[in-house]
């Protein structure tokens, strides 16, 4: 059986309904939660960068900051994997609309912010991180594929890895084909061995040819799952919030991945 195990040292979550992982825990217990006000605060970014950064960067930096703070690790030491199914759709919409009408007026700043690794770039600059950084996607399987990439890096190189999976809402004509109706982001800090801040262990097993049964977490509102490809993390996030159990994620379009979560005793 083909698999890999990692430990989880920190978790971050942000959506229009959830300000952080504590809010997800509360929501899953059926408690009322206060939705976050406005944009993701992304306090890790310096104020100037926070003003300049596009929404995709704020969203990714917010959950990354939450997960790293919970883990107690120094962000500068963490390798990072930033997954997103669609990148910054607002910038893609702006670029395509501008190129169709006045291409010579394209904004240089929006262009360099359009790269899929913009969140990784802003994050490594803000945290002084010289470790390897990656930016990945896999259509609707971006979270599972990103988790596999991050776990493999953690175990192969014996180092802690920050995984972020984030998508903002679609904009303009593009929204019709991306189907993203609301932002969603989550982050995990993964380590090869148990550390002081370890919450528990994730065992990942690839299940060839089997994406059927990719589990919807029973307690999560279906509307949350449908709003964003990055919400594919919710079944796992619900496990982390509720205790030991199993779920199945997509690691690729035709490759399932069973996830077993063992909460630290």
């Amino acid at each position, binding site marked *: 059986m083909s698999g890999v195990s990692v430990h989880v040292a920190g978790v971050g979550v942000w959506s229009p309904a959830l300000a952080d992982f504590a809010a997800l825990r509360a929501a899953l217990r059926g408690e009322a939660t206060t939705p976050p006000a406005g944009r993701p605060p992304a306090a890790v970014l310096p104020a100037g960068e926070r003003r300049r950064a596009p929404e995709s960067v704020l969203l990714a930096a917010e959950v990354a900051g939450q997960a790293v703070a919970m883990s107690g690790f120094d962000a500068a030491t963490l390798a990072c994997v930033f997954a997103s199914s669609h990148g910054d759709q607002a910038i893609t919409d702006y670029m395509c609309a501008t190129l169709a009408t006045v291409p010579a007026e394209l904004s240089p700043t929006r262009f360099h912010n359009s790269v899929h690794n913009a969140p990784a770039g802003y994050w490594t600059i803000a945290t002084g*991180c*010289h470790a390897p950084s990656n*930016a*990945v*996607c896999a259509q609707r399987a*971006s979270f599972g594929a990103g988790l596999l990439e991050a776990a493999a*890096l953690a175990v192969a190189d014996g180092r802690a890895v920050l995984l972020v999976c984030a998508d903002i809402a679609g904009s303009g*004509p593009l929204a019709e084909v*991306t189907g993203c109706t609301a932002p969603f982001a989550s982050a995990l800090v993964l380590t090869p061995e148990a550390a002081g801040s370890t919450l528990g262990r994730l065992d990942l097993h690839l299940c060839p040819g089997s994406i059927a049964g990719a589990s919807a977490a029973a307690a999560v509102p279906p509307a949350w799952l449908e709003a964003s490809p990055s919400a594919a993390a919710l079944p796992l996030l619900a496990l982390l919030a509720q205790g030991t159990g199993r779920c199945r994620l997509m690691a690729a379009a035709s490759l399932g991945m069973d996830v077993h979560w063992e909460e630290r005793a």
Partner: protein
Amino acid sequence: MPEPIVPLAVSAFTASSALGHGLAAHSAALEQARSGLRANDFSSAPLACWIGRVDGVEQAALPPAFARWECRNNRLAWLGLNQDGFLDAVAAARTRYGKARIALLLGTSTASIGATEEAYRRLDPDGGLPDDMLRPPIHAPHSLAGFVAEALALEGPCLTVSTACSSSAKVFASAERLIRLGLADAAVVGGVDTLCDSVLFGFNALELVSRTPCRPFDRARDGISIGEAAGFALLERIDAAPAAPRLLGYGEASDAHHMSTPHPQGLGAELALRDALARAALEPAQVDYINLHGTASQKNDEVEAALIARVFPPSTRASSTKGFTGHTLGAAGIVEAAIALLALEHDLVPGNLGGTDPDPACGPQFAWRNEARPVRVALSNSFGFGGNNACLAFARGEAGA
């Protein structure tokens, strides 16, 4: 520093760029010092610059079974897959290992955004995408890998790496980790990027595009020439192909400096280089050839020339081949890996085409013209926006195996 890795066999590889379709066209152009650049005849509005355009993409329609993936980027991917017996090599690997045991890891910076641009140029009267463009998978950055997974009938781990111009170098690192951990037995790696308005007008807006064919490491260099390309490689454990060239190591690191300007001392680039040498268990003096990132932008070339001058002895030869292909962005890693592998195969150090008046920062390592000499170990540098750096190390296979 990381531990040395067990090298992998590069049991098949191919490249298609402005130099032509497949490896023979690349070898011939390199030997003749013939550039593939031409005056821009691509963008939807005029733009005075030179480009590395691949001939024949317009005629290379996808087979009807893949019609929903139609777009320039996937056409170039399909054209590239059909060179150098690559499809047969993957088919043999599929038989040997099974379709779920071969990972597919592809790099791209813009994937098929050219199709999204086209859809926006001819929106419906109601402001929506035209009916023929209502194909969600081609409007996502995973379009390339989604198409290639279907075209190669692979069902293992499948991931797009999109770290701008280091994308298709970093896929080698991801593949090695998956194989080392037993999550895959082999991997198809590579990358494709095609010309599109986004990159032509985007780099133009950043004032990084030259009006003339690019001149890497020349004192008078004034910007890049954008190109397009497709390249692929099949990685397996060495026992499957002992005579094949080898991936000895790789390094990855971040500048933590600026979104579109390299670290002034090349800190991330040097970390990636030293990481690659450590994984490959190499000393700098053992490196015979380095294919440089060498974009012909002011900053990149200044920083990279200084890095080579301070790390390597004069016996290590170095050149940029962007003067041949243009800067193929997310495909640069794989195209230049292929050129490094050709250097090993033919004992040819390609000259730094386009540079005639060397920048004073360039050391004695630079090969300004072709050099016929033994090449046993070759590196390839790839650096991207966001300060994303990668370096690959390759070597010849087992002699007489």
